[in-house]
């Protein structure tokens, strides 16, 4: 008898994430890959990797839901899509069933979502049309500083005197950074300043409640940003087990909780 599994596919502008859960909502398989230009191929590769981790096959999939920037582009296994805002909310509430503010820092955009104690969204905001405060901002700055994204967290931690970046425009910030390099500022201090700038941009998007959860790739790869954010708001930040996968987990939970009789057949036919 096949297992009863549910898949969430989060096709982000920068990374594709897949989560496989069982009926109890346990995450039993997952994968993250660069979205690249062939969304379908990336999605398929992520799905196979997560199924392998779960020790399952496509025949075990009962239902699947897609989300994220490319949610409508990927037809395989999914019949239904939800927005990433809905999925982040669902994923976070699964881990923290209380009134929370979710701060998601993704590759291309940021989101702030407020949930009431029943898990209902009371409001949400996405950043506007610029890169300020997103992963794209950090990527751009890392390339200006000629360092890798992976190094940033470690460098920021070593900072002794953080650089203050005043502008919220990526181009203006880059100028500020270049000027600091010319003036002999240490890379560690610059990187910490960049982290600080990201958090500030996000916090000015909306009012936040008492309990704050952070998610997204930037958060997953830079735990120091989470510590800094906690210091800035004066209380610890809560993190789901795999912050980058929260949207995918939310999508998988939608797949589990939705009406999926119809999809069962479709999913199997397609596998």
């Amino acid at each position, binding site marked *: 008898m096949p297992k009863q599994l549910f898949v969430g596919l989060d096709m982000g502008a920068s990374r594709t994430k897949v989560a496989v859960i069982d009926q109890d909502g346990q995450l039993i398989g997952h994968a993250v890959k660069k979205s690249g230009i062939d969304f379908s191929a990336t999605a398929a590769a992520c799905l196979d990797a997560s199924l392998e981790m779960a020790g399952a096959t496509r025949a075990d999939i009962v239902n699947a839901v897609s989300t994220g920037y490319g949610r*409508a582009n990927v037809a395989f296994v999914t019949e239904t899509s*939800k*927005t990433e*805002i809905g999925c982040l909310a669902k994923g976070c509430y699964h881990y923290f069933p209380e009134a929370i503010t979710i701060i998601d820092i993704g590759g291309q955009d940021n989101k702030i979502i407020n949930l009431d104690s029943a898990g209902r*969204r009371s*409001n949400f*905001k996405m950043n*506007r*049309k610029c890169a300020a405060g997103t992963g794209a901002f950090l990527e751009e700055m890392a390339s200006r500083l000629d360092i890798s994204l992976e190094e940033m967290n470690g460098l920021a931690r070593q900072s002794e005197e953080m650089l203050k970046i005043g502008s919220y425009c990526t181009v203006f910030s880059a100028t500020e950074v270049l000027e600091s390099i010319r003036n002999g500022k240490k890379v560690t201090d610059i990187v910490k300043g960049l982290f600080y700038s990201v958090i500030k941009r996000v916090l000015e998007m909306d009012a936040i409640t008492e309990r704050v959860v952070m998610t997204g790739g930037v958060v997953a790869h830079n735990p120091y940003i989470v510590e800094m954010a906690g210091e800035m708001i004066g209380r610890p930040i809560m993190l789901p087990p795999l912050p980058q996968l929260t949207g995918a987990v939310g999508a998988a939970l939608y797949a589990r909780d939705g009406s999926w009789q119809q999809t069962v057949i479709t999913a199997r036919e397609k596998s």
Partner: protein
Amino acid sequence: MTTEQKNIRKKLQATDQMNRIMTVYFYGLNEAATSGNKKVAWCTSVGPAELLRAMGFAVHFPENHAAMLGATRMSTDMIPAANAIGYSPDICSYLTADIGAYLKGITPLSKAYKGIESIPKPDVLVYNTNQCRDVQDWFAWYAREFSVPIIGITSPKNINEVSSAHIDDVTRQIEALVPTLELISGHKLDMDRLRETVSLSRQCTELWKEVLETATATPAPLTFFDGTIHMGPAVVLRGTPEAVEYYQVLLAELKQRIAEGVGAVEDESLRIYWDGMPVWGRLRQHSDLFAGLKANVLASTYCSSWIFQAFDAQDPFRSMAKAYLELFIVRSDAYKEKYIKEMLAKFRIDGIIYHDAKTCPCNSNNRYGMPQRLEAETGIPALVISGDLNDLRCVSDEQTKTNVEAFIEQLEEGK
């Protein structure tokens, strides 16, 4: 929610008649400008059009022309030409699109109406700053370009209650326009004709109001997107019998839809209010986006801005002044909030969308905390989307789509 499903809004039959009267209007305007059989006045959308019409001017509305540039998606290519001569990308993109198009010698009128080669050259430019300062700067550019007089009304702004002092002020300013207009038109103002024009404007207004209020029905027989197109005659033909006749026809069709239980959007399940300008180059996409989600954007501040109930044929000057002052855009946030709150109740709205138009602060009512205040007061969820009326460089389709879909999800889950 499946993203596949498409649910397009239904076409209104009256559209053909509207197109006919708009065609006659544009050819008439062109005729006036090319043959000189009538003097041409340019007027801001809520400028003293009644006076101009009564004095025999053919009246051109540059905002209407700019909206056409937007709706035909020509505007974004025109704007840079105006930016290059010093008109910032941060100011009104009606202004920059219109002036840019002029600089490039392009007009959507030529495409839509064979034989029309350019916008009608003005004999006088008449503005009212009740909506913004940009209109004055916009007209001033053309006044220099064509060496024609520019006159207008400098309106009080941010008004809580329209007082008799405000009305006195604007009345005197309208009256002061008359001598110049008489000089340019070559004839004296005929008060009977003015009364008649004001009366026709009032009739047009009443009908337009009734048209918009048909959307109080469930399902609503029209959408905001229909409204932005069908308000054309209320903007450019107010004060004429053609506009009145047109809205009688449109109203009858909408009433028929109500009687038959026909909605503009299939299976309307959510009722949305739109505050702010439309994104002209995205009318179709936005209309399809909402219809596909079974949400009807059925009422708006924008379309309702052409309701002027103060018009009174017995007292034309003062009533014009009052009408131009009572306008939503001229009012304080306290008034605006009260107004929107009433609209939300009247149209039984589930959610409100504020369009934060990058280049039009005057029509972007989200910038001083209003969405938060109104949401707290009414419990009706709000969404702000960033965009612009004409400058598509400021529009992110993907962000709009995700925002709207997430908002509709939120409303559905909260139901």
